């Protein structure tokens, strides 16, 4: 896989406010990239520099190794966090307008849009005014408008915010479908479970800095705490006896005739030794390593003291 979009050492000030500090990200072609970070971290500003809406003070955005131009921008589909439509315009007219502004000719735009309208069951809405649509319908329309000019890369700022669970699932499936058809997707979100489900790579932006990045699985395993979740049948005492000095029971609880335990290992070869130790004492029903969730990592990173030391705050 090659790198499709690259941000190199992006720095951006708004007046005295240092919004982005030397942020670099690499987005692999055909992957889904998650941009995480607390509110006000600079995610939206980073996205706006990626879409060439705002220019960075220094640093470069490269698309296929070339600096971004107005011409290459047509390969981008952008769904902003604060998204809106012309309220008085009719759905079809509106969609055609926005797609043609991407530089798509009339007949291609019309054909693409027809496909998408079919797929989302939106044909009945065509001549409705945008203000007559429900919020969920408007969001679907916005998603369609973002994708219908067949961009190579889609940049979605908080794509799930405001969607109900059914629509969220539909959009998730669409994102996966777009990935399958070779598109690259960058999205920012606070929805950590969607990150685990969808993202190949992530970057965590905090106070204008990229404090954590890499493949989602690698990031998660780098934060592994050698915790194992075990479900078994048998006696609690026997189970406790089986644990040597290398293991420590974090918690144990009972549901029906089954027991669930969380065990912390003090050695890196935890799984092999633990299984061996338990085998003679209890009947193991399930055994797996508990990976830290993105949620836990996020909270740990954002609230950890070393992450919050930054020069701008010292200056302020």
């Amino acid at each position, binding site marked *: 896989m090659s790198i499709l979009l690259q941000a190199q050492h992006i720095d951006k000030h708004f007046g005295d406010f240092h919004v982005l500090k030397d942020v670099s990200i690499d987005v692999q072609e055909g992957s889904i990239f998650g941009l995480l970070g607390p509110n006000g971290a600079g995610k939206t500003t980073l996205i706006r520099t990626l879409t060439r809406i705002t220019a960075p003070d220094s640093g470069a955005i490269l698309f296929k190794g070339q600096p971004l131009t107005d011409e290459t*921008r047509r390969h981008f589909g952008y769904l902003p966090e*604060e*998204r809106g*439509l012309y*309220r*008085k315009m009719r759905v079809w007219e509106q969609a055609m307008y926005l797609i*043609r*502004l991407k530089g798509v000719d009339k007949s291609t735009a019309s054909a693409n849009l027809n496909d998408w309208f079919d797929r989302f069951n939106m044909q009945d809405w065509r001549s409705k005014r945008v203000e007559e649509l429900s919020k969920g319908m408007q969001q679907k329309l916005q998603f369609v408008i973002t994708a219908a000019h067949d961009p190579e890369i889609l940049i979605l700022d908080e794509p799930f915010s405001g969607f109900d669970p059914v629509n969220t699932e539909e959009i998730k499936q669409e994102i996966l479908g777009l990935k399958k058809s070779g598109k690259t997707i960058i999205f920012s979100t606070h929805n950590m479970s969607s990150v685990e489900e969808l993202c190949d790579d992530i970057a965590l932006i905090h106070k204008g800095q990229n404090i954590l990045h890499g493949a989602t699985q690698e990031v998660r395993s780098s934060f592994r705490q050698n915790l194992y979740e075990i479900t078994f049948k048998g006696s609690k005492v026997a189970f406790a006896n089986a644990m040597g000095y290398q293991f420590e029971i974090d918690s144990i609880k009972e549901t029906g005739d089954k027991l669930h335990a969380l065990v912390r290992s003090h050695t890196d070869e935890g799984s092999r030794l633990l299984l061996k130790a338990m085998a003679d004492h209890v009947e193991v029903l399930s055994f797996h390593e508990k990976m830290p969730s993105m949620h836990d990592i996020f909270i740990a990173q954002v609230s950890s003291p070393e992450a919050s030391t930054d020069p701008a705050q010292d200056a302020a």
Partner: protein
Amino acid sequence: MQHKIILIIRREYLSRIRKRSFIVMGLLGPLIMAGVIIFAFWSSLEESEDQKILVVDDSYPFFADLEGTSTIALDIQDISLAKAEALLEVSDYTGILYLPGKILANKSAELIFKKQPSFRVQRQLEERLQQYLEISKLKEFNLTETDYRRLKAPVIISTFQYQGPGQDAERADILPAIVGQIFSILIFFFIFLYSVSVMRGVIEEKTNRIIEVMVSSVRPFQLMMGKIIGVGAVGLTQFLIWVVLTFTIVSIGQTIIIGNKYVAGAEPPGAATEMIQEQMSAENALSLTQISADDNLFNQIRRVNFPLMIGLFLFYFIGGYLLYSALMAAVGSAVDSDTDTQQFVLPVTFPLLLAYFLSFQVFANPGSTMAIWLSIIPFTSPIIMMIRVSYGIPSADLWQVYLSCALLIATFIAAAWVSARIYRTGILMYGKKASLRELLKWITFR
């Protein structure tokens, strides 16, 4: 890239043209304007309604030979005013002309009417009385009527603008100046209406949050200029509709009215035209009664240099609109809602309002230093220069017109540049009420 700005212009144009308010304005405006013109025309014809006036002559038979006109019949009687009033009640007299005994001394008479007669009737009566008194005085001084005609020396001053040695001076009349004033008022209203419309459009895009989608496809400058051009085209369309519809309605109305009158045999069309002229002159409150035959109103109108006036009108109309709408686009981008606009709209439109109010002074004194400056300064020139030009600009001062045009173009380019910089930052700023200092800072952002 050009193709995108055309798409934007098209949307801005069509979305406004299709609005109900545009259609209503497009029909209502001409209807009102044509209505006013037709009413003026019609009421001028209405005056041909015959008047039958009972003349109460206190010094009877002094006025016994007073004659009326084709439409005003006079019945001179030696009765008291009280009796005449009683008579008015029961007869078909339309009014009483009361000539008190003191009329020779204080030269005033009274007209008592049932139905308000027109200004024209009053003036005709005045003329007749004046003439009658003058002729009666002739006898007093032993003068013949030929002597009297010699004595009467009506003087008309025609004004000419000096054009330099060896060149014919140009006629300068008041009427072309009125045309200029009308043009400048039109420019004022269109600049005001449509630059505010641009501002509203920008605010709408911002509050709708469509703006960020837009600027991910087009450059903010394209969006801003597309909107300005689109809205300007709407203004021109509206203006064109007004002109065409007003002319159409007026000429249809005129044909119908004149047609009716002609069939009734009351007035041939020629007389009707003459009446319109008189009506217009009365409305303008200009004493045009003394204008000689070769210098009537229509000759004056004919002397208006329409190609030049319309050319300059379009230039200042478009130039002034572009300048102000660029500024108003910046204002729209800096605020979050219509209610926040006041603090910026007033300073921006102040020169425009000032020009409008001062235009009446310029109308009175087009050659003043103030008029010259105001006609050169780009923020006021679209309104003021129209008035000056309508009076006729001496060729020695033509450079002022060129300078004014050049400055307007240059200022528009500068304003568009500054506004575009405020705009592209402002459209993405929410929640913070921007101060003027902040706006200046935005100009310097990368």
